[in-house]
Every structure is written in structure tokens, then in C-alpha cells.
């Protein structure tokens, strides 16, 4: 009797501790997610009470007829590949430089981090201003062709503008993580490698980089997640233009739902996005798991 009472008490305590968080998470994610699965198979304009069931019509249309979604998917994929590679390479390079014995290293680290504390929408507007007025003024001043190009108005160039601004905003974030990783590498291991005759290139590839793998894993993961989500900077910098040249998947989903009022159709797209993100995450975790070295 006593143990049953005890068990019930423990269960009540357990529930009291976890229910507030569970309710919040179930509200924010699980209920909308389940609703998503339902609406993905319907035609729904967001207002009508009972959506019309239409089977797999939405998915068929997305995969067969929706050129905009295809273009957005291609944009997001290209953006993701460029962003992940470039932001990691640049921030690792910057981290190595800032890890040297510099007098101003704290101020420098802070300087490169500053754009990261600004909201991405605001960063987009700052650079819209730069591309509109700054590059014109620089073009008049220097007569260089780089500044006379239409960085936001050209279908080909606007991709690189979005990429550049995203990297400018976030490079400091990844640099901070890489610096912490570099500092956690014990000095004696590097010295031992030097004594064994390793040059600086070999030392970096064979010692520093493998020891840095936990940071690389984190940074790849973060950059992957943020490239799939890219939205804010596009809205403010290019408005997905010119035409829809810089529309990402998330932007396409947003306009499909909130501009075109095709809510059911848009939820089908979100479901596809979810499946893709899940697959990428699983692959990523598998791929990096056996590359890390234990110290």
C-alpha cells in the first residue's frame, strides 16, 4: 500500500515537473505538425471551416507542375552548398588568424562578431542601402566595373549578393566556435608534432584539423540548418527578386500560404521540406559520428 502510494506520489511529482514544458512544446511543434499532415492532403484556403480532401493531388502538383517550387528548391540547394562551404572555410581561416598572439585580438574578435547580433532583416536593409547607394558612389569614384554592376537587379548576381550578405552576418558566429575549438587543442600535441618534423601544413592537416572535428561538426550542423531556413535576409535584401530569382523554399512556402492563400497546398510543401530535413540530419549525424577523435 505504502509503495503504491509512493509510486503515485513520484509519478505526480514527475508530471508536475515536466508538464509545463511538454504543453509548450506540444503546442509549438507537435499539434501544428499533426495538423500539417492532415491539411497536406486537402484543398484549403485558410478561411473555409472544412477543407476539401483531395488525396495526393497537392504532392502530384508540386512534383510535376510547380516550376516555382522547383526553382526555389534549386536555389536553396545551391545556396546551401555555397554557404556551408564558404562560411566554414572563411571562419576557420579567420579563427586561425585571430588565434595568433595579437595585441588587439579581443577587439578584433568582437568586431567580426558584431553583425551577428543584428537581426537578419535589418542586415538585409543595411546591405540594400550599400548596394543601391554605396556601389554607385564607389563606381563613380573608382570607375571599377565591379561597382557598376547591378548586384540586386541581375538574376545571376543577386544570388551572390544574398550569399555574401548571409556570410557577412554570420561569419563571426562560426569564428567564435572555431577559436574555442583551436584553444582546446593541447599545445604539447602540436609541439610534439613539430619535434617529429611536421611542417606547418602537415601539422594543420594531421593534428589541428582532426582535433577540431567537434567544432567542425557543430559548425556544419548550424550552417546546414540556417541555410535550409534562409528567409529573413531574402525578404529584406532582394524581396526574392529580380523576378523570383532569389526565392528560397521557405520563401515559396510563405508566399504560397500567406499571399496566394493556398494553405493546403503550402502545407504539402512543408511536409516535403520536413522529410528532406530529416533525411539530411540523419545522414549528417551518421557521416560525422565516426570522424571525431577522442582525446
Amino acid at each position, binding site marked *: 500500500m505504502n509503495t503504491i502510494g509512493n509510486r503515485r506520489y513520484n509519478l505526480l511529482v*514527475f508530471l508536475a*515537473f*515536466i508538464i*509545463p*514544458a*511538454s504543453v*509548450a*512544446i506540444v*503546442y*509549438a*511543434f*507537435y*499539434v*501544428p*505538425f499533426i*495538423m*500539417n499532415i492532415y*491539411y497536406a492532403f486537402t484543398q484549403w484556403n485558410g478561411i473555409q471551416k472544412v477543407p476539401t480532401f483531395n488525396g495526393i493531388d497537392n504532392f502530384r502538383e508540386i512534383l510535376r507542375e510547380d516550376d516555382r517550387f522547383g526553382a526555389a528548391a534549386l536555389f536553396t540547394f545551391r545556396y546551401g552548398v555555397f554557404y556551408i562551404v564558404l562560411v566554414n572555410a572563411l571562419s576557420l581561416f579567420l579563427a586561425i588568424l585571430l588565434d595568433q598572439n*595579437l595585441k*588587439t585580438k579581443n577587439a*578584433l*574578435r*568582437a*568586431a*567580426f*562578431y558584431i553583425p551577428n*547580433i543584428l*537581426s537578419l*532583416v*535589418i542586415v538585409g*536593409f*543595411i546591405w540594400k*542601402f*550599400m548596394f543601391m*547607394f*554605396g556601389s554607385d*558612389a564607389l563606381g563613380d*569614384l573608382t570607375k571599377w566595373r565591379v561597382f557598376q554592376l547591378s548586384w540586386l537587379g541581375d538574376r545571376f548576381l543577386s544570388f551572390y549578393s544574398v550569399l555574401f550578405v548571409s556570410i*557577412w552576418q554570420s561569419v563571426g558566429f562560426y569564428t*567564435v*566556435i572555431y577559436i*574555442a575549438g583551436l584553444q582546446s587543442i593541447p599545445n604539447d600535441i602540436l609541439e610534439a608534432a613539430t619535434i617529429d618534423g611536421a611542417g606547418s601544413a602537415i601539422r594543420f592537416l594531421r593534428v589541428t584539423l582532426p582535433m577540431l572535428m*567537434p*567544432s567542425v561538426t*557543430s559548425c556544419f*550542423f548550424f550552417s546546414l*540548418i540556417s541555410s*535550409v*531556413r534562409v528567409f*529573413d535576409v531574402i*525578404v*529584406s535584401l532582394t524581396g526574392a527578386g529580380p523576378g523570383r530569382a532569389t526565392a528560397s523554399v521557405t520563401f515559396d512556402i*510563405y508566399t504560397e500560404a*500567406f499571399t496566394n492563400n493556398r*494553405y493546403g497546398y*503550402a*502545407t504539402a510543401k*512543408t511536409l516535403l521540406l*520536413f522529410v528532406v*530535413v530529416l533525411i539530411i540530419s540523419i545522414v549528417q549525424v551518421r557521416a560525422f559520428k565516426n570522424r571525431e577523435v577522442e582525446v
Partner: protein
Amino acid sequence: MRRRSAGLVLLEVLLVLFALVFLYPIILICINSLKPFSEIMTRLFSLPRKLALENYSTAWTVINYPRLFLNNLVITVVGVAGIIAVSAFAAYKLSRTKTKYSWTIFILCITPMIIPFQTTMITLLKLAKMMSLSDSVLGLAVQYWGFGAPFAIFIYHGFIKTIPRELDESAIVDGATPFVAFLRIIFPLLKSVTSTIIVLDIMWIWNDFLLPLIMVNGSKSTRTLSLAVYSFFGQYNTNWQFAIAALVLAVFPSILYFLLMQKYIVKGVTAGAVKG
């Protein structure tokens, strides 16, 4: 102490110059926010001839700055406080209870971390309308609890594992309720993790755009600063002098926050990333 080589000095000079170029857009925006439009067009790189303070007074009143600043503050404070409260309790109990169910619940709690918000935003808006949480500043703040809790629970869970069980168990044996034992004994030991989560979540919620955009953009009085700047650019897209003054007003709190909390932010980012 090794002597600093010439190469190192050169590197330092180059890096400082690069940092100035890197931050130049922000500096340029601040300078130009004080000029009339004609001067922005003709003398972009020079200092203002005459201070056009009316840029700021216009931006200040048009976006109703004090009101929106307060909105941001309420959303951030209520959001972050709630995330800390619900997550610390849940992570503690989930970490201390070693059963299959407890582990499953933990995994279910942290899974949403990797899922982009955009995958659920459409039906979330419908749900928020049904629960009367949309179009309200407090309603928006409360919704951040569920979005912030997965990461916070993940970080807390990992840290609580390293705290010896004997600490809270002996307090309970001495007659403290589990609630008091947690608050008095364990929670104070979580100070460093708590500050990491607070620092990261403040930056995230203060700057967030998409969730406020779908939840509170309907009325001028419920907007956040980012939303106000966004609609300001839409409305006044020819009056750049007002728009960039609004931009500087929106950026200012973030920069101030960074300068004051720099040490904690860097520590928080590192701690959060290494655990994540």
C-alpha cells in the same frame, strides 16, 4: 615571452584594416542617417554638413519607437523567463528519472530543435488563432516557450547529469519537497548554463522576424522593432533618410547589449555550440 615578429605585426595591421572595412556598412549607415536625402545621393562618404536630426524625430514618431521598444522588451523578458522556468524543471526531472519513458520524452522534447520553423508555421497560425494567442504581444511571448524549450532542455539535461544525485536526494531525506530541493539546491548550481541560455535566447527573440510577422503584424500597436523597420521600408522606399534613421534606432539596443554583455555572449555561443 617570445618576441613578436614583424610578420605578426603586419598581420595585425592587416586584420585591423580588414575589420574596419568589414564594419564600414554599419558606420556608413549611422553617418548617413544624419543627412538630408540630397546629401546621401551626392556626398555619401563624407560627414554631414548640417545635422538632419528631423530624420530621427520623424522615424521615432512614425514607428512609435517607445511603444515598440516596450513590445520587444515584454516579448523578450516574458519569453526568456518562461523558457528558463519550464525547461529547468523538465530537464531536471527527465535527467534524474532513469526510465525508458523518461528517455523517450526527452528525445521528443529536443527533436523540434532540428526542424525549421517554416515547416509548421501555417498550421501554427491557425492553432494560435483558435487559442487567441495571435495579434497579442503577450500571446506571442508565451509561444516562445515552446520554441525555446527544446534547446534549453537539451543544454540543461546534459549539465544536470554531471551534478551528483546525493545533493538533492539528501535534501529530500531531510524533509524538503522535491520542488524546494530543486529550487534551493540544484537550480543555483545551474547558474552558468542558465546564463548561456539567457544570453542566446535574448538575441534570438529580440531579433526574430518570421514568428512576429505572422502573429502580430496586423496592428501597428503590437508590432516589434524589426517588423516596424520592415514595413517602414515598404512605405517610405523613396525616403531613405527616414528609413535608415529607423534602422539605426532598431540596431542601437542590440549594439548596446553586445557591448555590455560581450564576454557572456562569446562564452554563451561557445558553450551552446559545443554542447549542441
